C-alpha cells in the first residue's frame, strides 16, 4: 500500500508498541506531526527539546521499554544533544527522530540545517540519515532493534523532509532483523563459567559488585540467588541501586566516591571481585594503581569493549547477565563465607546511621534529614528520580531501595537538569508509581520550564528541591580543594513556591525538620505536581568522600563536631 514517509514513521512506532512520544515541532518535522493526528499515540509537548530527551530516557529507565523523542532540524536537534549523551552514558534504550532539511539542500547550509548525524556520532549507539522514503521502514525497525538489544543505548534517525513527504509501496514486515555487523552475544562460554567457579571456590573474601547491567538484563532474582547460595556480600554502583534489596543481610550498599566507607574498605581487602554488569568507572575505582590490589577479578558484561577497559581482569565473560548467572546457578554449590561477612560487619562501625547522627542538633534542616524522612514516610516505596549534585549523593545514601526500577539518576554523564523531566517521563511510564524528583536549587532551574509540561499534561510528580543556595557539590570541592574560595557557586533562586503557583501547581516551603512530615504528606495527598522548597543547611558536605583520583580507602570522613545524639527516628 502507498504510504508517506510520515505514515511509515507512525505505523512502525505503533508496531513497536510505542504509546507515548516526547517532542517539539518545527518546519523540518511538520509532515511527521501532521500524520501523528491519525494515530493513537500520546504526544507530550515539552518546553525545551532537552526535556524531551530526558523524558524519553526517564520513561525507558522506569519501564524497560524504548523511550522515543522527536525534534525538528537544526536547533531542535542540537537541543537534544545533552539528553542523548546522558542516555548513551547510562545505556538507556531510546530512539530519537529528528527532521532534516529537504535532501537536495543537505550540504548547502540550508535554513536550520545541522549535521546531526555528525554531531551525534560519538553519543549514539548508532545513527542514520534517511534521504529516501524507500529506506525509512527498515531503518526505523533497525533503530528500535539496536536501541533495545545488546547493551542498550540511544539510536538517532535523521529524516529528510522529502523522505517524510514522499510515498512508497510499503507494508510493515516482522521478519527477523539481520545485521552483518551487529550480533550481540547473549550466551556465556561454558568453559569460562567453569573457570570462574574454580576461582570462586579458591576465594576467601569474595565480593559482588552489581551495576546497572543487573537491572537492564532483569537478573535481580538470579543475583539474589547467586549471592545467597555462594554467601557473598553485594555492593552496588550508583546506577545499580535497586539491583539487590538494600535491607538484605548480604547487602553492603553503594561503593565509590561517595559510597560507604566499609564497602570501599572491603573492596580493597577482597581477594575476588565479581563484577556483574558494571564498568569500573573512575568514580567507583579511585586510583586504579591501588584499586583492589589483592583481588582477582571476574567481569561479566554484555559489552566486550568493557572487559579490560579500565581494570585489567583475570577473566572476562561476555553475555547477557541473566543468562550468564543462570548458567552459574546450574553449577554453583552452597558456600560459606561467614568469617569474611562478619569481618565486613565490624568495618561498618562508622555507619551511615551515625553519620546522620553526627549532624549538629542545632535545629537546622539538613538534606540528610529530608531524604531520610522521605524514605520513612513513603515506606521506601517511591520511585525516586534525582538531579545531579550533593542532593543526588545524599539521596543515594539515605533513600534505601528494596525494589528494582525505583531509582533513576544520571550517573555517567552527571547531567544537571535531568531530574524533573526524567521524573515526568517515569511517571508517564508508570502512572501508578509515587514519583519523587529530588533536585538541587541549581539543576532544577536548568529545566524548571518542564513544570509547565507537567501542568499541561496533568502529570503528578513531587519535586523536593534541596535548596542550599549553592551549586553545592562544586562548593564542596571548593571547600575541600580550593581553600573555600566560592567562585560562581552561590546562587540566588526565584521564589520556588510562587514559581509552582505561577504554573497553577502547588508550592510548599519547609524550614525545620518538624515540618518535613507535613509537607511530604500534603504533597502525597495533593492532585497534580507539588514543589517543596526545602531550605537546608547551606554549607553541608557529602561524606564520606574519596577525592578524585585518590586511593579508594582514603576517604574524607565527616568531622565530628558534636556528641552523638541517638534518636529513635534515625535508626535505619
Amino acid at each position: 500500500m502507498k504510504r508517506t514517509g510520515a505514515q511509515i514513521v507512525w505505523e512502525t512506532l505503533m508496531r513497536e508498541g510505542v504509546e507515548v512520544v516526547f517532542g517539539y515541532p518545527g518546519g523540518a518535522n511538520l509532515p511527521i506531526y501532521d500524520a501523528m493526528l491519525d494515530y493513537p499515540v500520546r504526544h507530550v509537548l515539552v518546553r525545551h527539546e532537552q526535556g524531551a530527551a530526558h523524558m524519553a530516557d526517564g520513561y525507558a529507565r522506569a519501564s524497560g521499554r524504548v523511550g522515543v523523542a522527536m525534534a525538528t532540524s537544526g536547533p531542535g536537534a542540537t537541543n537534544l544533544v545533552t539528553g542523548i549523551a546522558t542516555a548513551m552514558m547510562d545505556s538507556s534504550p531510546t530512539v530519537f527522530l529528528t527532521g532534516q532539511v529537504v535532501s537536495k539542500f543537505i550540504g548547502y547550509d540550508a535554513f536550520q540545517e545541522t549535521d546531526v548525524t555528525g554531531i551525534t556520532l560519538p553519543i549514539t549507539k548508532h545513527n542514520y540519515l534517511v534521504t529516501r522514503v524507500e529506506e525509512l521502514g527498515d531503518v526505523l525497525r533497525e533503530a528500535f532493534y539496536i536501541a533495545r538489544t545488546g547493551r542498550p543505548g540511544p539510536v538517532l534517525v535523521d529524516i529528510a523532509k522529502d523522505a517524510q513527504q514522499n510515498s512508497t509501496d510499503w507494508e510493515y514486515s516482522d521478519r527477523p532483523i539481520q545485521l552483518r555487523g551487529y550480533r550481540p552475544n547473549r550466551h556465556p562460554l561454558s568453559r569460562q563459567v567453569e573457570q570462574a567457579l574454580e576461582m570462586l571456590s579458591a576465594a576467601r573474601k569474595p565480593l559482588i559488585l552489581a551495576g546497572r547491567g543487573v537491572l537492564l538484563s532483569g537478573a535481580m532474582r538470579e543475583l539474589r540467588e547467586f549471592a545467597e547460595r555462594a554467601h557473598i556480600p553485594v555492593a552496588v554502583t550508583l546506577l545499580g541501586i535497586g539491583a539487590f534489596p538494600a535491607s538484605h543481610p548480604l547487602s553492603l550498599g553503594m561503593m565509590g566516591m561517595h559510597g560507604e566507607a566499609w564497602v570501599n574498605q572491603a573492596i580493597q581487602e577482597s581477594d575476588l571481585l565479581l563484577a556483574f554488569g558494571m564498568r569500573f568507572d573512575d568514580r567507583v575505582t579511585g586510583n586504579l594503581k591501588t584499586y583492589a590490589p589483592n583481588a582477582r577479578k571476574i567481569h561479566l558484561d554484555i559489552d566486550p569493549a568493557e572487559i579490560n577497559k579500565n581494570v585489567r581482569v583475570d577473566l572476562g565473560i561476555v553475555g547477557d547477565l541473566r543468562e550468564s548467572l543462570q548458567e552459574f546457578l546450574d553449577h554453583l554449590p552452597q558456600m560459606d563465607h561467614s568469617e569474611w561477612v562478619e569481618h565486613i560487619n565490624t568495618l561498618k562501625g562508622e555507619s551511615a546511621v551515625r553519620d546522620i547522627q553526627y549532624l549538629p542538633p542545632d535545629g537546622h534542616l539538613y538534606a540528610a534529614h529530608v531524604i531520610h524522612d522521605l524514605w520513612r514516610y513513603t515506606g521506601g516505596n517511591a520511585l525516586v528520580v534525582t538531579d545531579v549534585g550533593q542532593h543526588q549523593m545524599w539521596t543515594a545514601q539515605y533513600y534505601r531501595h528494596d525494589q528494582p526500577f525505583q531509582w533513576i539518576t544520571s550517573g555517567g554523564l552527571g547531567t544537571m537538569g535531568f531530574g524533573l523531566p526524567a521524573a515526568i517521563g517515569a511517571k508517564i511510564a508508570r502512572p501508578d508509581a509515587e514519583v519523587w524528583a529530588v533536585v538541587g536549587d541549581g539543576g532544577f532551574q536548568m529545566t524548571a520550564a518542564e513544570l509547565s509540561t507537567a501542568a499541561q499534561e496533568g502529570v503528578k510528580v513531587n519535586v523536593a528541591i534541596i535548596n542550599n543556595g549553592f551549586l553545592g557539590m562544586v562548593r564542596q570541592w571548593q571547600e575541600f580543594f580550593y581553600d573555600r574560595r566560592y567562585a560562581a557557586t552561590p546562587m540566588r533562586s526565584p521564589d520556588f513556591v510562587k514559581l509552582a503557583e505561577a504554573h497553577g501547581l502547588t508550592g510548599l516551603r519547609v524550614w525545620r525538620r518538624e515540618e518535613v512530615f507535613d509537607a511530604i504528606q500534603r504533597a502525597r495527598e495533593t492532585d497534580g505536581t507539588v514543589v517543596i522548597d526545602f531550605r537546608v543547611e547551606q554549607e553541608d558536605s557529602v561524606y564520606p568522600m574519596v577525592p578524585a583520583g585518590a586511593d579508594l580507602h582514603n576517604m574524607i570522613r565527616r568531622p565530628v563536631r558534636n556528641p552523638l545524639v541517638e534518636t529513635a527516628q534515625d535508626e535505619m
Partner: protein
Amino acid sequence: MRHTLVALVEDKPGVLNRVASLFRRRAFNIESLTVGHTEQPGLSRMTIVVDGDDVAIERLTAYLYKLVNVVHVEDLTHVPAVTRDLAMIKVAAPPETRTQVMQVVDVYRARIVDVTTQSLIIEVTGDEEKIESFVEVLRPLGILEMVRTGLLAMSRGGAPLYPPPNGNGNGHHAAASAD
C-alpha cells in the same frame, strides 16, 4: 609497537567517518588507513596501521566491533602476511641524470608511467622497507612530488579472512579473554 589491522565493513555512506572518528575519540593514532572493495559485494576492506601495545589493540578491536557497520576485524601483526604499499614518485630527470634514475628503477623493478623531457613518474610497489629504501636512493636525484597509498595486507595461506556467516557473533568472545 605498530599493528596492522584489517577490518571488513559494510559499504555504506559514512562508515569511513565512523571508523576514523573512533580513532580520534579513543585517542589512537592512525599511521595509515586504506579502504577498498572486496570480493564480496556490499563489503569494503580497511587496512589500518596503528601504534599501540597488545592491550590497547585488543581494546581498539572491541571498540571497532561496537560500530554497527563493522563486520569483522583481524590483527595481522603476529601472523604471516603479505603487505604492500604503492608509491608514485615524480622525479626530476634532465638528460644529465636520466640514465641514473632509470638504473635505479631497474634495480627496484619499479615502472616508469609518465615521461617528459625534464621529469619521470615512477610507480613502485612492495613492502614498506623496499619503498622507503627506493625513496632514499632517489632523493638525491631530486624528488618533485610523491604519494603513497598506505599499507594493504593479506594473511598468507588459503583461509579467507571472512568468518562463516553465522559465526561467532562479532568475535566478541575472542576479544573477551584476557589470557
